[in-house]
């Protein structure tokens, strides 16, 4: 995406709290109607960045444009964005109807029209008839939906969501994820969503920015982040990953090859190889990209190892396999091995690992 069609454009933004740098030279563009997530562990700067979009924090340097307008001098109450707070911030002294209608005061609508808008919102969030409930009579999921309705009734250009599902239990969270995604498609507003939950980000987002230490590590689609992470940090933050120290052995020909610890010299996709021959790299392989078998498989790419540990997870198991030449065992995620493939899952049993060359990711060495 280029800057010209970006709806939100964050340009070289830095933020200091005293001597602490919370945001470190962040630039990115978010498109109209996109469901965009900021993903990172706590303290990575994702919430600070969101609060800068809302106007609650200023930028130390750099500029944020929303719909083409610079936002530096625009206070929160004049920005074309609305926010769903982590605590939901439902006004405790108002009932549901007055909470949802809170932002409509300045529009000076006749009461009938205002009521119709509120009713429409209650319909949208599937809480019709809840208008006269008091704030303290609501469950967590209901408060979350009312916070959404209160923001959406103002028809913002951007909706900012600060970990809105964090306070809900697992089942409700999964249900709300689906509802949130459906709602976003329905209203067509740009959502900027902050979360520390990588699964949630993968489920919901069109694109995700992975943040760490105030920096943006990678901005990509969920599949892009998972299949082709560009750094070890991203690779280990999104899902699980096996890392192997390696050295580039053949480059420039039609196929690339890398000598990796424990795997031998293996073919890799040529577009993954940007380093010259002899350069140190890291080879990364997802646990579910391996197949396991008790006997030597027919595939070209296979190594033999010994099972060192097994974790049974129901539909799948995690196997940890020691191979000669690599210190840490390789993690493999697979459907239950002994029932399907007839092999033994006893500790120390010999097993064969095989994988496809396409699933290999090459990263810069540490």
């Amino acid at each position, binding site marked *: 995406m280029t800057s010209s069609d970006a709806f939100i454009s964050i340009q070289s933004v830095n933020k200091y709290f005293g001597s602490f740098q919370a945001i470190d030279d962040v630039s990115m563009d978010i498109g109209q109607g996109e469901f965009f997530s900021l993903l990172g562990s706590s303290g990575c700067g994702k919430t600070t960045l969101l609060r800068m979009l*809302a106007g609650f924090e200023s930028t130390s340097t750099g500029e944020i444009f929303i719909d083409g307008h610079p936002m530096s001098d625009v206070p929160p109450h*004049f920005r074309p964005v609305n926010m769903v*707070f982590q605590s939901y911030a439902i*006004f*405790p002294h108002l009932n549901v109807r007055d909470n949802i209608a809170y*932002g409509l005061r*300045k529009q000076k609508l006749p009461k009938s029209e205002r009521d119709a808008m509120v009713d429409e919102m209650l319909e949208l969030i599937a809480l019709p008839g809840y208008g006269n409930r008091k704030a303290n009579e609501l469950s967590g999921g209901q408060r979350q939906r009312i916070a959404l309705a209160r923001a959406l009734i103002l028809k913002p250009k951007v909706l900012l969501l600060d970990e809105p599902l964090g306070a809900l239990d697992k089942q409700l969270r999964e249900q709300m994820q689906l509802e949130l995604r459906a709602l976003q498609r329905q209203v067509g507003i740009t959502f900027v969503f902050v979360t520390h939950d990588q699964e949630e980000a993968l489920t919901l987002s069109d694109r995700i920015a992975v943040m760490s230490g105030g920096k943006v590590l990678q901005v990509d689609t969920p599949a892009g982040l998972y299949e082709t992470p560009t750094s070890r940090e991203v690779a280990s933050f999104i899902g699980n990953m096996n890392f192997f120290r390696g050295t580039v052995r053949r480059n420039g020909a039609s196929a690339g090859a890398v000598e990796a610890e424990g795997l031998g010299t293996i073919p890799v996709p040529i577009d993954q190889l940007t380093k010259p021959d002899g350069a140190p790299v890291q080879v990364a392989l997802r646990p579910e990209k391996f197949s396991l078998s008790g006997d030597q498989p027919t595939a070209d790419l296979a190594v033999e190892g010994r099972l060192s540990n097994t974790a049974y997870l129901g539909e799948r198991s995690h196997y940890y396999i020691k191979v000669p030449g690599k210190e840490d065992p390789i993690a493999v995620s697979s459907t239950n091995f002994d029932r399907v493939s007839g092999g033994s899952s006893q500790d120390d049993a010999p097993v064969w690992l095989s994988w496809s060359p396409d699933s290999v990711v090459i990263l810069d060495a540490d």
Partner: protein
Amino acid sequence: MSDMGTYIKRPNRALQFYALIFLIVLYVPVLFIPMFSFNDSIYVRFPLEGFTLQWYVELWAREPVWAALFNSVKVGAVVSIISTGRGGVAARAITRDRVPGRAAIVTFIMMPLVIPGIIFGVALLVLMSQLGVPLSLYTVGLGHLIVCMPFAVATLLPRFEGFDASLEEASADLGENGWWTFWRVTFPVVFPGVVASLLLTFTISFDEFIMAFFLTGTDPTLPMYIWGQLRFPQEFPSVLALSSLILFVSFILVFIAQYIGRMGLDDEKNLA
């Protein structure tokens, strides 16, 4: 194990007994005042001589009592409004803004609680006479402001601390400026604390004696009037009657203030 559970839950009889004695010793002397106010004798001594409402009737008919009462109410009303307003601003600043030296500021605000009233009284008297300000109900009110400020702040601080700062941010986010956010969110949420603070500071001003002693001009407040009457033995039963009424009203006001002040605080904690 036994039904009594661990020592943590087991009642301690000795402590309960001590607490009972403590409360009796604390309040029985005060209860003598209403008791003797109904006694049919101008002498405060046992045995009691019979029940009468005579002293209350006399009190009703006495002009200076009414004048002093209105003086106290005037001062109390103005002092409670000003100290609650200022206390609210202080509490908001202490809890919300990034104030350097927050702990020191709170200590300074609370200081009048531990500085003897006589010192403040003398200091203000000296200041007023140096400035050539004549003593009046205004100077009494000024003294009462100093006494009442800590109580206003102490009542309002928990209200401000107890409410989520993101409520105000949500209001700003929904398009309201500072003025409207204050009236639509901040004030309604802290309102019970404001009422509690008004009642409490009014009561304190109404009952205050030391500041009034130094700073009163020609118009006495009610406690000053009582003090003046103590010189006349035949007036003493009426003073007791007046004191009983003040005691009763003060107790009611403080009780209401405590009740309202806590309103909603527990609910919100349960939700969080």
